[in-house]
């Protein structure tokens, strides 16, 4: 994982129409590792809360005997949060902030590709 590789991966994610920003978040401490966000998105807040959510979801899925998460899609009124756990033993999260009418499948594909190649 290098800074230029992360920047390239985020660039590919944010090129998808309807994506307002993407970032790599450290799952254990909820801090931003790399980001490409449009103005108005509070990256540090999204990172902290996404990492907190990841921990709780992980516990819920382990309790339900479902294993670890592969992809989350949180649909909201004005957009969506798409997240793919990445890195060694999922130490990172790849997060995309999107508009409501985004092609979720395409963003998911780019997130998974970035998780495999850049992280």
């Amino acid at each position, binding site marked *: 994982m290098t800074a230029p590789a992360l920047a390239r991966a985020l660039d590919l994610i944010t090129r998808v129409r309807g994506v307002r920003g993407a970032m790599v978040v*450290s799952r*254990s*401490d909820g*801090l931003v590792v790399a980001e490409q966000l449009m103005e108005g998105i509070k990256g540090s*807040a999204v990172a*902290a*809360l996404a*990492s*907190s959510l990841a921990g709780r979801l992980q516990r819920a899925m382990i309790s339900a005997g479902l294993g670890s998460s592969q992809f989350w899609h949180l649909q909201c009124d004005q957009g969506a949060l798409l997240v793919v756990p990445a890195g060694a033993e999922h130490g990172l999260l790849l997060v995309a902030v999107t508009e409501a009418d985004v092609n979720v499948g395409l963003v998911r594909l780019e997130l998974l590709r970035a998780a495999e190649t850049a992280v």
Partner: protein
Amino acid sequence: MTIRAVETWTLEPLTTYVTEAGARLVLLMTPAGQVLAQSGFSRAVDVMAASALGAAIVASTSELARLMSQPPFAGLSHQGQRNGIFLSAFDTDRGPLVVLVVYELDASSLGLVQLFLEQLVADLRAASPKTGVPKQVLAADFERDLNDSLNSLFGR
């Protein structure tokens, strides 16, 4: 969750912070180590030790910053395997204050602690008394003030 305050204006901001950040222990104090409020501590001796050590850390890092010709550090984080400690100093109308936060990595994170700290600082600044200059802490008064604070915090 037990939150107690020597200065009651700190109570509401601190309660909100502890709930939202998922902090295990929080200590709000002056840079001299005078405790204004605490959350989660059950023994006075722990508050005494934590406030003294926290104040010493802030003093030593401020001196390091001064040697580097930098303004004092805004925050200091130390993370272990299960717990993390975060220390931050900020100004209010009451005078400079220091907050020491201990969080469990299972329940919170450095990101959450920092995120809600911004709100805590804003709430404390809004709630802090606007009048009166903070009194200088004299060595002779320190022990008495400390005992008074601990008596208030632990209801003795």
